[in-house]
């Protein structure tokens, strides 16, 4: 999985948990909370959907890695690739 593909996976999840948001122009380097209405429960949703849909676990101490699309891609892409290598 490339980092761009990873960003798309995250955006697909955000589209479901924040259905009122326009996601056509999300800035990858800006904190997600600073450009759309996301609260702490929504971030728990992102964590839950990564677990449910993709088997990815994000420990609470690493939640800050999900702050922006860029940081999501940096943090999650190796996890996706590690999972793919296992299967």
């Amino acid at each position, binding site marked *: 999985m490339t980092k761009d593909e990873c960003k798309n996976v995250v955006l697909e999840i955000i589209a479901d*948990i*924040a*259905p*009122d948001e326009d996601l056509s122009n999300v800035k990858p380097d800006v904190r997600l909370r600073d450009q759309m*209405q996301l609260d702490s*429960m929504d971030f728990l949703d992102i964590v*839950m959907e990564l*677990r*449910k849909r993709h088997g990815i676990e994000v420990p609470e101490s690493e939640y800050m890695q999900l702050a922006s699309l860029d940081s999501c891609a940096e943090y999650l892409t190796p996890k996706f690739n590690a999972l793919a290598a296992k299967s």
Partner: protein
Amino acid sequence: MKQSQQSRIVITGVGLTAPNGNSLPEFRQNLLNGVAGVERIEVRYMGTQLAGVCHFDPLKYQKKKEVRVGTRAGSISIYCAREALADSGVSFETLPKDRIGIYVGCTEHGNVETENEIYNISKFNYDTKFWSHYHNPRTVANNPAGEASLNLGITGPAYTIGAACAAGNLGLIHASQMLRLGEVDFAVCGGISESIHTFGIFAGFKSQNALATHEDPKQASRPFDMARNGIVIAEGGCLYTLERLEDAQARGAKIYAEISGYHVNSDASDYVLPNPVRQAECVRAALRRGGFEAQDIHIVNTHATATPLGDIQECEAIRAVFGTGCPDTYINNTKSYIGHAMGAAGALELAGNLPSFDDLIVHPTINVDDLDPQCALPGLVLNQPRKVAKVDTILNNSFGMLGINSALIVRRFVP
């Protein structure tokens, strides 16, 4: 603010969603035209069942995210509260939000959301790490009122009143009391139900042999008919705006009716079987509080749910109070159109009768092809609306499991 225990309390707005209408005019028209709102739905684990389903648009007043995060009960509350406020004509922006109370009756809350989560984790080998972090805010008992307070920015007291199927009446009664006590200056109150989304209620009634079946969904709910065989479960909601009379008059509000008598008591005799002696006591106490004799009541809305025994017992209670000496008392039933909307039932049924103050028409009980002789009350309005000479008072009966009884009397407003 001038409140006292003698303050007159009036209804100034109505917001509702029923299986056969999403506004009072639409609901009323369908009650007069004999239009039922029961249909077939798929219920988890149980297959096709009959139910009263509401078709309002939640997105009229909620964002998609609110609908996703919240509950069906919350959506129903928000829709009804917003509709009632709009109908009241009050300038909502100018009302002090900490002086508004929200009092929502419900039969139960949390079954739907808990069943959904158990079903969800069943897809993950019952691993609870897949259990939603929204479970608790969705299932707390105050959820339906709390979601309305969030949506409307109301900061006064907002909570639910759990009173089984008497809850709709209790929402109105409690709001009247809070207005009289001066706890709030404006109330949004009534009852709601999301019950058709829990298989447990269907399965419970089925195990109790109290779930209606019929080849034609629209004929399935048939109180007082010999062929009745149980309850059609429905969802719905009806919330009212209530104000002290002087406040309503000061702003020139339209007044639907005045709350003029009520009572709540308990059977203390059985988990599910009604008790006609206590029901009659409840109605008599409501009459006394309002200063009425039985013959002063012009419309009696029955609670009857179309169970074989329950209908007979309510008729026994009504017969004990009204006897044969009340020629101007007419009796009807709304569940024959929409099924049993549980915590919303009392509030919806009252709403359906309110327009009778203006048009002097009593909507009928439909689906009575063969009247059970034990339910043959004088004044029962069957299958066709009846134009009557006078409608100044409505008695609204609502009873519930664990033996809770409520009787609410409203009267035509006379300054």
